[in-house]
C-alpha cells in the first residue's frame, strides 16, 4: 500500500484534482460545461465499476438508473418553479434504488451471459415505457425547467444556476461518491463482494448468502447511478428515452473498461477520455460513430486493463520496488491512491 509507486499514482491523482478545482477559473464556458458532463459520467462509471470490477456482475442495463432518476426529477419538478433539493434528491435516489431492487431481485440470481442479457432487457423495458408514455414527452423527452433549489428556511445555501457553483457541486458529489465507494470496499461488505467476484461458489461455501450481497451491491450501484442521472437532469435540463437506452449502457461499460475496471480512479479517467474523444470525433466528421467503433475495438484488443493499467505500469517502471501489498484484506487494487 505504501510503496513508492502507489504514492506516485496518488500524487498524480491529487495534481489532477487540483487542475479540476482550478479549471472553472481558466476554462471557457463551453468546456466547463463539458467537464461537468465528464464528472457526471465519472460518477456513473464508478457505480458500474462497483458491479463489474468489484462484484463481478457485468450489467448491460446500467443506464436505466441514470435515465430513471432524470425522469423522476422531471416528474417532481413543477413547471413554474424550482423544487427543493431536500425533496427532489431523496425522491430520485430512493426511486432508482427501488427500481434497482426489483430488477436486481430477478437478475442477480443469474450469472454470466444471462445476467448481461437480463439487465439489458429490463433496461429496454424502461426505455419503451418512457418512449411510449406521451405524458412524459414520449420519444422527445421532457424538460426540467428549473434546477432544484438548495435552501434552508428562506436562506439560499447554494445557487446552482451559477455555472461555477454548479461545477463545484458536481465535483463534490464525485469526490463524495469516490470516498463512499472506498469506504464500502474496505468494509466487511466490500471484502465479501470482492470474494464473490473472485470465486462466488467458494464465498457461499464459506458461509455468505451471496445472493443478498450481490443484491445490495446492485442496489447501491443503481442508487449512485441515480445520483448521476439526477445531476445530468439538472445539467442538461432535459431527459429523454435515449438516456436509458442500451447505447448509453454500452457507453458506460466502455468508459469503465477504457478507464480500467477494478480501480475507482480509472473509471473517472475513462469518463474524461471518452467524453473528450466523443467531442473531438464529432468535430472531425459527421460519421464520428465509425471512429468510435474502431476506437472501442482497439481498446478491447490492445488495452484491456485500460488507462489505470497504463498508469500503474508506468508508476511501477518509475519505481521498481513494487512489492506485494502489505495491508491485509484491502481492496484488490490496494495500490490505488486517493483523490
Amino acid at each position, binding site marked *: 500500500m505504501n510503496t513508492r509507486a502507489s504514492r506516485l499514482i496518488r500524487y498524480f491523482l491529487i495534481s489532477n484534482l487540483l487542475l479540476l478545482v482550478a479549471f472553472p477559473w481558466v476554462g471557457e464556458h463551453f468546456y466547463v460545461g463539458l467537464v461537468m458532463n465528464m464528472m457526471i459520467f465519472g460518477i456513473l462509471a464508478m457505480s458500474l465499476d462497483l458491479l463489474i470490477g468489484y462484484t463481478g456482475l457485468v450489467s448491460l442495463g446500467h443506464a436505466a438508473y441514470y435515465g430513471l432518476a432524470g425522469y423522476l426529477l422531471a416528474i417532481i419538478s413543477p413547471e413554474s418553479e424550482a423544487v427543493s433539493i431536500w425533496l427532489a434528491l431523496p425522491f430520485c435516489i430512493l426511486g432508482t434504488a427501488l427500481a434497482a431492487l426489483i430488477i436486481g431481485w430477478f437478475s442477480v440470481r443469474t450469472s454470466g*451471459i*444471462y445476467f448481461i442479457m437480463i439487465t439489458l*432487457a429490463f433496461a429496454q423495458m424502461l426505455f419503451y*415505457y418512457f418512449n411510449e*408514455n406521451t405524458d412524459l414527452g414520449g420519444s422527445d423527452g421532457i424538460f426540467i425547467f428549473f434546477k432544484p433549489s438548495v435552501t434552508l428556511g428562506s436562506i439560499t445555501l447554494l445557487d446552482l444556476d451559477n455555472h461555477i457553483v454548479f461545477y463545484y457541486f458536481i465535483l463534490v458529489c464525485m469526490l463524495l461518491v469516490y470516498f463512499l465507494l472506498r469506504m464500502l470496499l474496505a468494509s466487511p461488505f466490500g471484502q465479501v463482494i470482492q470474494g464473490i467476484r473472485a470465486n462466488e461458489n467458494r464465498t457461499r461455501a464459506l458461509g455468505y448468502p451471496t445472493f443478498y450481497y450481490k443484491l445490495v451491491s446492485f442496489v447501491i450501484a443503481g442508487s449512485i447511478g441515480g445520483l448521476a442521472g439526477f445531476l445530468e437532469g439538472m445539467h442538461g435540463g432535459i431527459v429523454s428515452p435515449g438516456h436509458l437506452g442500451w447505447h448509453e449502457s*454500452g457507453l458506460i*461499460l466502455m468508459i469503465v473498461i477504457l478507464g480500467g475496471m477494478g480501480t475507482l480512479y480509472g473509471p473517472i479517467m475513462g469518463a474524461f477520455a471518452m467524453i473528450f474523444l466523443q467531442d473531438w470525433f464529432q468535430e472531425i466528421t459527421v460519421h464520428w460513430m465509425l471512429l468510435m*467503433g474502431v476506437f472501442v*475495438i482497439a481498446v478491447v484488443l490492445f488495452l*484491456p486493463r485500460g488507462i489505470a493499467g497504463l498508469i500503474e505500469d508506468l508508476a511501477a517502471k518509475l519505481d521498481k520496488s513494487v512489492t506485494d501489498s502489505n495491508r491485509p484484506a484491502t481492496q484488490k487494487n490496494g495500490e490505488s491512491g486517493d483523490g
Partner: protein
Amino acid sequence: MMTFFIQLLNSIQYGFLLFLVASGLTLVFGIMGIINLAHGAFFMFGAYLVYWLTGVVDNYFVGILLGLPIMLVMGYVIERLAIARLYQRDHLYQVLLTYGLILILNELQKILWGSDFYSVPVPAVLDGSIALTETQAYPVYRLFISVVCMLVAAGMYVVIARTRLGMIIRAGSVNREMVQSLGININRFYAIVFSAGAALAAFAGMIGAPVSSVYPGMGDQILIISFVVVVIGGIGSVKGAFVGAMIIGLADTFGKVLIPDFASMAVYATMALILMWRPQGLFGRA
C-alpha cells in the same frame, strides 16, 4: 373471432421471423461461447441489401439471392477479423467488441443508404390477399413469410439432426473440447457457424422488409427482442429459441391489441414472469 384468428396468424408470422434471428444468436453462443451484439446489425443489413438490390435488378427474389452470399462473406470476414480474437476472453470484452462493431455497421449503413425510411414493395406474385370473411382478408405475403420460415426451420432441423455438420453442432454445444478431439478444423467450423448465423439474420431482414419498413436502428430493436427470446428459451438451445420466439410473437401481437399504450412492455413482462419460474430459461441447462 376472425380478428383473433388474424392476430394469431400475425403472431406466428412474427414469431417465425424472430426465430430466424434468435436461432443464429443462440447457436453462436451455444457453440462458440460468444455473445454477439452485432447480430441485429446483420438483420438490418439484410433489409437494406434487399431494398437496394431489388431496386437494381428490379426483382425481389433475385435481390435475396444476390444478397445472401454478400452476408455470408460479411459474416465470415467479421468472424476471422474480430470475433476469432475473443474466444478466450471474458464475456465483458465480447460485449464491448461487438458493441464497437454495431457502431461501425450502423454508421456504414448511414453512409451507404442515409437516414431515410424506405419501403420494399411486396412482389407482384404475392401481392394479394385471401378473403376470410366479407370484410376481413389476410395478405398472401404474410402467409408466404410463415411458410418460408417454416421451411427454413425444418431445413435447420434436418441439418442439425441428420447431417455430420449437425452432429458437430450438437456435440459442440454440449462440449467444445469434444469437437476439437474429433479432428475438425475448429477455426473453419466456427467461421461457418458464425457466417451462417449472420446469413439467417439477414434473411429474416430480407423477407421481413416488405411488411415492415427499412430504417436505421431496426437492427438494435430486433437484437434486444432476440435476446429476450434466447433468454426465455434457454441460451444455446435452438428448440428454446423456437418456443421463445413463438411466445414473444404472441405477447407482442396481443400486447398491441390488449394494452396498446404499452405494447412493447408486454414482451418484457412476459420474460420476467418466465424467469421467475425458470431462471435458466425454458430449455436451458441449470
